[in-house]
């Protein structure tokens, strides 16, 4: 009886302490409207799943975890204000970056100036010039070669000599383009067409015709979701010509299930980067996707969530490990821990390089094969996206030329 009473008192005391200290607040902006909302909403679902899990286990440092997330409307103009509010008004304990490069770029100087830890969220090269030593990106890439080495190597093996480059005129796509240009130079390819297009471009027919007229061997595209879909559609209608051996590279959006489903068979033949394709094995990821699928239906987001969501859950897992190990919310201590240790996550082990990007990148270039229209289930099957590079993840050879791969 005495022992029971002691347990009861201990529980009471701990629950009072739990309530007195208040929750650990983790703040972020996340696109819930605008062009990036497809990824942003799904990402938030994954982060909330982690919060549920960690709170079910008793929270962190004896405190509950709470997310504070604002909609940045996919706009880079909104994020500096939102993060200033998170830091100064909401007084959050930790910060996570918004999904994507464009909204993240303007908050980098702010977090560096304030000396704050920032967990990156699928940005590309936002820390390249800022060089903030408390930045840790969840995306499985580092520099441009980590994205496109497989793409251009495959092109070169097919005997490609010329390349056309089509890139959206914004931070992310231009960073990709610059990286791709370095690889193009390395592979001694001749650029026969180069075009940057504004984000407001309505129709790509004119550009696709110009590419066809230039007769390139490789077409490299760096685009955001709206552009990616419109480009695929224009290619399907007009064709890029028989000279093209390999098409794609850096098209954001073709990893999202609703887009893949609606574009359907027009995807066939395209070689594009990806972060996860069915067949890749990591401990816990299958269970995660099964749970995510149920939440996705309720939240009306990407039903499979392969591309970005497990990496958002992984942000939570990394923070959890670092906070538990350091027994602290001190940003410097957490950053030091993240830099020195290998993190165990549902997307496999993550170790960081000095720039806060992955020391061992894991981006694959995969070719869409045998895709039919109106079928979500097919995207769960291995073999619909055949990994053509890099070598260590390869599951097949690229089918070329592009028209043949498309079954035309």
């Amino acid at each position, binding site marked *: 009886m005495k022992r029971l009473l002691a347990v009861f008192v201990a529980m009471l005391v701990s629950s009072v302490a739990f309530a007195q200290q208040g929750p650990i607040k983790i703040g972020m902006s996340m696109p819930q409207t605008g062009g990036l909302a497809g990824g942003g909403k799904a990402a938030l679902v994954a982060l909330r799943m982690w919060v549920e899990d960690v709170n079910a286990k008793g929270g962190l440092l004896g405190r509950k975890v709470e997310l504070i997330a604002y909609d940045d409307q996919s706009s880079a103009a909104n994020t500096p204000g939102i993060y200033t509010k998170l830091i100064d008004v909401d007084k959050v304990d930790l910060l996570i970056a918004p999904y994507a490069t464009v909204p993240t770029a303007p908050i980098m100087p702010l977090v560096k100036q304030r000396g704050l830890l920032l967990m990156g969220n699928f940005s590309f090269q936002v820390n390249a010039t800022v060089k903030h030593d408390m930045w840790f990106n969840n995306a499985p890439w580092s520099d441009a070669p980590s994205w496109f080495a497989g793409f251009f190597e495959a092109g070169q093996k097919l005997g490609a000599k010329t390349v056309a480059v089509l890139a959206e005129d914004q931070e992310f796509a231009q960073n990709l383009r610059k990286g791709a240009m370095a690889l193009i130079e390395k592979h001694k390819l001749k650029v026969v067409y180069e075009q940057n*297009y504004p984000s407001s471009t309505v129709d790509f027919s004119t550009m696709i015709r110009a590419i066809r007229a230039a007769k390139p061997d490789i077409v490299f595209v760096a685009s955001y979701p709206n552009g990616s879909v419109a480009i695929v559609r224009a290619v399907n209608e*007009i064709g890029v010509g028989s000279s093209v051996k390999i098409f794609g590279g850096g098209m954001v959006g073709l990893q999202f299930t609703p887009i893949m489903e609606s574009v359907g068979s027009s995807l066939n033949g395209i070689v594009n980067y990806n972060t996860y394709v069915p067949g890749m094995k990591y401990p816990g990821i299958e269970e995660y996707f099964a749970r995510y699928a149920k939440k996705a239906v309720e939240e009306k987001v990407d039903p499979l969530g392969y591309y970005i969501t497990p990496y958002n859950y992984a942000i939570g897992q990394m923070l959890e490990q670092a906070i538990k190990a350091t027994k602290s919310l001190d940003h410097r201590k957490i950053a030091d821990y993240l830099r020195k240790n290998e993190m165990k996550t549902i997307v496999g082990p993550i170790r960081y390089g000095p720039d806060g990007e992955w020391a061992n990148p894991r981006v694959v270039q995969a070719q869409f094969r045998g895709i039919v229209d109106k079928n979500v289930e097919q995207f769960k099957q291995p073999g619909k996206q055949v990994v053509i590079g890099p070598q260590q993840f390869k599951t097949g050879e690229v089918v070329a030329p592009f028209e043949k791969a498309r079954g035309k």
Partner: protein
Amino acid sequence: MVFSLDLLAEAVLFGILVGCFYAAVSIGLSVAFGLLDVPHIAHPAFMVLGAYGTYLLGRYGVDPILSGLLLAPLFFLLGVAMYRFYYETFEKRGTDAGVRGLAFFFGIAFIIEIGLVLAFGVDQRMVEAAYIGKSMSLGEIRIPLRLVVAFGTALLLTFFLSLYLSKTFTGRAIKAVAQDEPALRLMGANPVRIKQWAFGIATAVAAIAGAMLIIVGPVEPAMDRVYIGRTFCVVVLAGLGSMSGTLVAGLILGIAESIVLTMFGASWAPAVAFGLLLLVLGVRPQGLFGR
């Protein structure tokens, strides 16, 4: 940059097709802003709403063009109700209605966007039809059928709207209310009811333009932001309230964008289009077809 006469000819042809699409999405605004002087910046948001309506009907197998026509009467009623609300709360109360109206219509646009996000989610939506994803050959040139459909619809919309405004009593009353409201009142017509009717027509046209929008490309709730600048540019370039002028202005914008994109680079396209607007307004402040 690749240059050839063939490419230039293709650029002009595609400019005409895209230009007609620009005219189709601007013609409703030409009525609301051009004739009624209502700062209707929610017009592109209504188009996106029309596009989602088309998507919804498309799930039941209804053709997108037919969907646009079916939605038009509903949008007409919506437009009538919205103008009445705008009139009672803003226009009736003072001379700064225009400025406050901007905030009102901006709010409406944002409510529509959020409503669509809540109802449909944030992912892109598309429709299917026999003419989407296919092309026709004109010699060596392959032309997407969806752009041909938009081209035809823009021509028909302009023709019927011009006919309506010039040949019917109500149409002429709409034109008259834009020119001289007190004179119309002296003729025994109620300007507010005429404006209400005209705003209904403008909104109904937005439904048809929305169907065009989702035929030409995928839509997402925030798509209206892309079209605010372009539609106002076309209407002002045309000269406020001119239907045929809207078609010509759309064509000029489409052709200019297409040629600049082909010859000088896509990044310059929007700058040149708006540069053209400034140039025309410098020479003819009333626009190309304004009086």
